[in-house]
C-alpha cells in the first residue's frame, strides 16, 4: 500500500489504463506501435514538463509561460543556421541551447530587476521571442539535416532516441533534486522563501538557475521536435504551454511549490498522449474529447492530492 501513497502513481495508473482501453479496441493488436508512439511524443512533453516542474517548485506565482515561444525561437534559429547541411547537427544543438539559455536569463532579468510577477514577465517576453522567430525567418519551414532527422526519429534498444534523451534528463533532474545541495535549496525556497533566505539559502541564485534551466530545456525540446517533425513552424510550441503545466500537476507535484515529482511528469506525459489517442480511437468528437480530457485530468489531480494529505 505504500505505493498508493506516492502521488506519482496516479498518473502512471491512468496512463496504463488508457493504454489498455485503447488496445482493447483492437484486441491486442498494435500495442507496441502505440507504446512506441507514446514514448516518442511523450518525450517532448516530458522535457518541457521537467523544466516547468522546477519552476513551479519555486513556489506560488512561479511559472514559465514563455516555453512555447522559446521552443519556436530556438528551433527556428537552429534550423536556419544548419540550413539542412549534414554535419551541422552539433552546431544547431549549441545554438538551440544558447538561445534557450539567453531566454532564461532575459526572463529572470525581467523578474528580478523589474520586479515583475513571473506570469507577466514570461508572457511579455514570449511575445518578444515569438516576434523574433517570425522576424528571423518569416515562418519558412527549413528541413533538418538528414542525419539529425534520422536520429530524432530513430530508435536505440527498441526505444525512441528522443525518449532516451527525455529519460536521461529525468534521471539527472531527479538526482539533482534528491541528492544535491542545489536541489534541497530549491525545495526549501519553494516551501518558504523567507525562511529559506533567513537560513542562508541564496534564494535569488536558485531562482535564476531555475529560470535558465527551464528555458534551456525548452530550447532542447524545440530543437528535437523540429528535427523530429521535419522543420520548425511558428506555431510548433503552442500546445506545450498548457501541456507543460498539466503534466506537472497530473504528475503529482504540488502547484503550491516546494514538492516536486519527477516520475509523475513522465507518467503524465505518456497519459496526455494516450488519452487523446484513446478518445480518437473510440471516435469521440472534438467537444466530447475536450470535456472528457478535462474531467479525467481533474479526477487524477484530486486523487493524487488527497493521498498527499496523509503522508
Amino acid at each position, binding site marked *: 500500500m505504500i505505493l498508493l501513497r506516492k502521488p506519482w502513481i496516479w498518473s502512471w495508473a491512468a496512463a496504463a489504463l488508457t493504454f489498455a482501453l485503447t488496445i482493447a479496441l483492437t484486441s491486442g493488436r498494435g500495442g507496441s506501435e502505440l507504446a512506441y*508512439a507514446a514514448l*516518442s511524443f511523450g518525450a517532448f512533453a516530458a522535457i518541457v514538463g521537467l523544466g516547468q516542474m522546477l519552476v513551479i517548485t519555486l513556489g506560488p506565482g512561479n511559472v514559465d509561460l514563455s516555453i512555447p515561444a522559446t521552443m519556436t525561437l530556438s528551433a527556428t534559429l537552429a534550423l536556419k543556421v544548419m540550413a539542412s547541411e549534414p554535419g551541422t547537427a552539433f552546431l544547431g544543438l549549441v545554438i538551440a541551447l544558447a538561445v534557450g539559455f539567453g531566454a532564461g536569463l532575459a526572463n529572470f532579468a525581467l523578474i528580478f530587476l523589474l520586479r515583475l510577477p513571473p506570469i507577466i514577465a514570461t508572457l511579455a517576453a514570449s511575445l518578444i521571442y515569438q516576434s523574433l522567430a517570425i522576424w528571423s525567418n518569416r*515562418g*519558412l*519551414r527549413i528541413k533538418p539535416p538528414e542525419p539529425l532527422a534520422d536520429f530524432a526519429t530513430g530508435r536505440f534498444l527498441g526505444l525512441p532516441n528522443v525518449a532516451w534523451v527525455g529519460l536521461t534528463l529525468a534521471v539527472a533532474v531527479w538526482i539533482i533534486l534528491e541528492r544535491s545541495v542545489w536541489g534541497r535549496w530549491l525545495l526549501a525556497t519553494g516551501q518558504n522563501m523567507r525562511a529559506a533566505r533567513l537560513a542562508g539559502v541564496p534564494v535569488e541564485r536558485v531562482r535564476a538557475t531555475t529560470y535558465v534551466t527551464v528555458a534551456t530545456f525548452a530550447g532542447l525540446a524545440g530543437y528535437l521536435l523540429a528535427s523530429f517533425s*521535419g*522543420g520548425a*513552424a*511558428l*506555431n510548433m510550441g503552442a500546445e506545450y504551454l498548457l501541456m507543460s503545466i498539466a503534466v506537472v500537476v497530473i504528475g503529482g507535484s504540488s502547484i503550491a511549490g516546494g514538492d516536486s515529482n519527477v516520475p509523475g511528469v513522465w507518467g503524465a506525459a505518456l497519459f496526455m498522449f494516450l488519452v487523446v489517442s484513446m478518445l480518437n480511437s473510440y471516435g469521440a468528437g472534438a467537444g466530447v474529447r475536450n470535456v472528457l480530457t478535462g474531467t479525467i485530468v481533474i479526477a487524477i489531480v484530486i486523487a493524487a492530492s488527497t493521498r498527499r494529505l496523509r503522508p
Partner: protein
Amino acid sequence: MKISKLLLGAAGLALVAGLAQAGSHLQDTSGKRIALSNNYAGNSWRQAMLQSWEEAAGAAVADGVVAAADAFTTSENQATEQAAQIQNMILQGYDAIVINAASPTALNGAVKEACDAGVTVVSFDGIVSEPCAWRIAVDFAAMGKEEVDYLATRLPDGGNLLEIRGLAGVFVDDEISAGIHAGVAEHDQFKIVGSVHGDWAQDVAQKAVAGILPSLPDVVGVVTQGGDGYGAAQAFKAAGRPTPLIVLGNRQDEMQWWADQRDANGYETLSLSIAPGVSTLAFWVAQQVLAGEEVPKDLTVPFLKITQDTLDEKLAGTPVGSVANVMYALEDAQAVIAGAK
C-alpha cells in the same frame, strides 16, 4: 511657371489614376488609405499572406493608386483585441479596412461602426457576417468534397479513409469536414474509419495520426485540410505502414515530399488549398469599391489546385518552407467582380 508645373503634376496624377481605373465612370483613389486588420500571423500561410499584401499593396502605393496600404496584426488572436484595432483604424481615418477576422460574428459591432463612419469594410478568408461588409469567401465545403471526388476516380473500389481535421471550433474546419462527409455519402464505397484534429500543423497532425494508427484497419486514403499531409506521411512511415493516397495542401514540404515519392515510386495525388495571395484580391476589391465600382457583397475566390502535371512548375515557384501562391492583380479582381454580378 508655377502654374504649368501644377498642370503637369495634375496631368501625371490623372494618368496614373486612369491606369488604375480602367474605366471612365470610376473615381480617383490616389488619396485613399486602406488598412489591413489581420488576427493572426503565427504560421507560414499567414506569413505568406502578409508578404503578398506587402508586395502588391506596396507597389500600388508606389504607383500612386492609393495613398497608403498598411498592415496590422493583433498579437493574441482575440476577437476583442481585433475589434479594438478596427476602432483605432476608424479613428485614424482610413477609407477602407480589409479584414481577416478572428470570428465571423464577434467583430460585427466594430464592423458596423466602421460602416456607419463611412469606411468600406472588405473581409476575406476569415469573413464577417455583418451585412454592410463585403465578403471574399472560399467554398470550403466544395474543397472537401473535391478531395473525395478525386479519391473516387483514383480508387474506384473504395476503402477506409482517415480524416485529418483542422482546428476544432473554427468554422473553416467544420465547412471542409462537412464537404468531405458529403463526398463520402455520395461515394459510399468509402468509409471514414478515423478522424483526428491536426490543427493545420505538421507536428500536431503527425502526433495525432501516430496515436490513432495502431487502432485502425488498413487505410487507403487520407483526406486533409492543408498543412497536415507531410506529418501524416511521416506517421505512416514511422508505423511501418504502406503510404496511402494522401490529399495534400500546397505546402512546399508536402509538394517536395510528393515529388520525391513520384520520382521514387510513381506516387500520384492531388493538392489543393487557398492561395495566401487572396489578401491581394481583397486589396483590389477594396480599391474598386473606393473607386465607386458596384461590387456585389459576396464574392467567391477559387482554390488553388495542383495536379501531377503542374507539380514541378508550382514547386519551382514556391520558396522553400512556404506555401504555393497566386498573386491577384487589378484585372483578376475585376474578373471576379464581373463574374459575381
